[in-house]
């Protein structure tokens, strides 16, 4: 950690060189900077370090250059993480609030069990994106992705919103088990999804005008982060996938 006023001065901006650094000292350096009032922390040469910004609280912005390891921003509450590179598994795992913007792709189980905040991924994500996202009162997590997703998107989803803006409509979606076991929340996909790719308990329906209006700010936000033309995305057709009833699995585990 370094800055022009020396290590003990209160500093707005901090730069950390993570080359060869284990994630424990890296996270200690991040927390120390936040404790001293840093508002922006830029981290260079990130290479596989897990658990970056986990459990981190506060109004701080992390700019991450490189390829962070799994569970970026797990339990994070408040901060913003901008990643210039690809993420590994489960960025946004059980995140409470805040923002993760990934200028690249991400691995399996993106936004795993997410409770609040937003995750934006420019490119593709792996399997089980948004698995078990949940919501409670004003806490409503949002996952937006610009590329492809793989099977079991929104598996066991209990709340929140997944907005899949890719692949482009001329490339049909052939990923099985979308919304498999979904019992809350919504998955909105650009283009269309054949019924055979819907998971157990998932049901497809068109978007109402109000629902379309609801996603347009998210599309504009996505377009701003990644310099995309929002109009193309706004004009396209979308379909939403929701639980087939208020309790699709009522008879599976209980007797009434």
């Amino acid at each position, binding site marked *: 950690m370094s800055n022009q006023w020396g290590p003990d001065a209160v500093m707005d901006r901090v730069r950390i060189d993570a080359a060869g650094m284990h994630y424990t000292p890296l996270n200690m350096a991040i927390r120390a900077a936040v404790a001293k009032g840093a508002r922006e922390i830029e981290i260079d040469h990130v290479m*596989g370090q897990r658990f970056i910004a986990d459990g981190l609280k506060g109004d701080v912005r992390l700019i991450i250059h490189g390829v962070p390891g799994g569970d970026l921003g797990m339990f994070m509450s408040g901060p913003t993480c901008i990643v210039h590179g*690809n993420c*590994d598994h489960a960025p946004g795992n059980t995140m409470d609030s805040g923002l993760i913007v990934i200028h690249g*792709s991400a691995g*399996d189980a993106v936004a795993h069990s997410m409770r609040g905040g937003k995750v934006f991924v420019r490119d593709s994500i792996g399997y089980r994106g948004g698995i078990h996202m949940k919501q409670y009162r004003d806490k409503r997590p949002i996952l937006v992705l610009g590329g492809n997703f*793989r099977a*079991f998107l929104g598996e066991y989803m209990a709340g929140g919103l997944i907005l899949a803006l890719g692949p482009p409509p001329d490339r049909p979606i052939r990923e099985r088990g979308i919304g498999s076991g979904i019992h809350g929340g919504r998955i909105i996909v650009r283009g269309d999804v054949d019924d055979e790719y819907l998971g157990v308990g998932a049901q497809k329906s068109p978007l109402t005008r109000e629902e379309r209006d609801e996603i347009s700010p998210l599309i504009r936000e996505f377009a701003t982060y990644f310099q995309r033309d929002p109009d193309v995305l706004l004009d396209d057709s979308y379909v939403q996938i929701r639980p087939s009833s208020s309790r699709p699995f009522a008879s599976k585990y209980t007797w009434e």
Partner: protein
Amino acid sequence: MDGRAIRSALSMMDERGSGEGAGYVAYGAFPEFADYYAIHVFFDAIHETKAAVDQELSKWGTIVHEEEIPTFEQQNIRKIHTPWRYFFQPDARLMPRSTTPEDDIVMHLVMKVNTSIPGALVYASGKNIAIFKASGWPEEVADFYRIQDYKGYIWLGHNRYPTNTPGWWGGAHPFNLLHWSVVHNGEITSYGTNRRYIESYGYRCSMFTDTEVVAYLFDLLVRRHHLAPELAVRALAPPFWDEIDRMPGREAYLNRAIRLTYGPALMNGPFAIVVAKPDAIVGFTDRIKLRPLVTGTMGDRLYISSEEAAIRVMEPEVGDITMPRAGEPVIGRVYT
């Protein structure tokens, strides 16, 4: 390539292990003995156990050269076994009815030693293939054998986190039989079925862990049944029936035939696996992708790993990181 790069790649993923087992394989490690089977043995109390192995080998062929595998003391590795390697020439005349007598003699020897000579475990038996494994962290095991002193054209490495069976030297990956080596992340929950199936063909499971069946299944399906590696993977991780039903006629027929013929070879449970043979490597995951696998290429090199960062440590400029689909093999072929 020497062993330094793969050591640095594995050290990115220490979190995935528990220090109870790690290992490496190098293809092309013994150019001066390339034509002989490099039979690796862990001996307990070597003065008492080695004579029986020597005798068994001498019955079936000639020991051309043998040596204790050089090791270098590491703080956390307790050398409870003595690793030894024989370079062995089987006598093909002793198995006259086989079409691959040398391989069959060596396979017989591996199974015989591992089931009947207590204190001796054959853990590798291929030509020009070196295996380095022990209980420890990947960096320690690499330094224990000084893998930087070996060169190979294919390297696999593995860091083990034993879950269902104890960690021990023989249970560390890679698993090897003849020309096959296997590294595996996950559990094969169908192990019981797979084991009964493979043992009906003369293989004997002796490593107390699930992964060894993968090496034996590849040996059976590819070496003995002559399936292409793509079709062997199709047998082990086949498409779902509903997917087969939607395939066009001939493709559906082929996939149905593979599933029906090789039903007991189907592997269930979470897995990401890389298998090597002298002219290729193949990586694949279970059908619903319960374990990670990413690939990258750079020039004529193919990298397969659990994590992208491990590839980037070896090849910082790698351009095409991709995630193969569940159950679909990624194959790298060696060209000469």
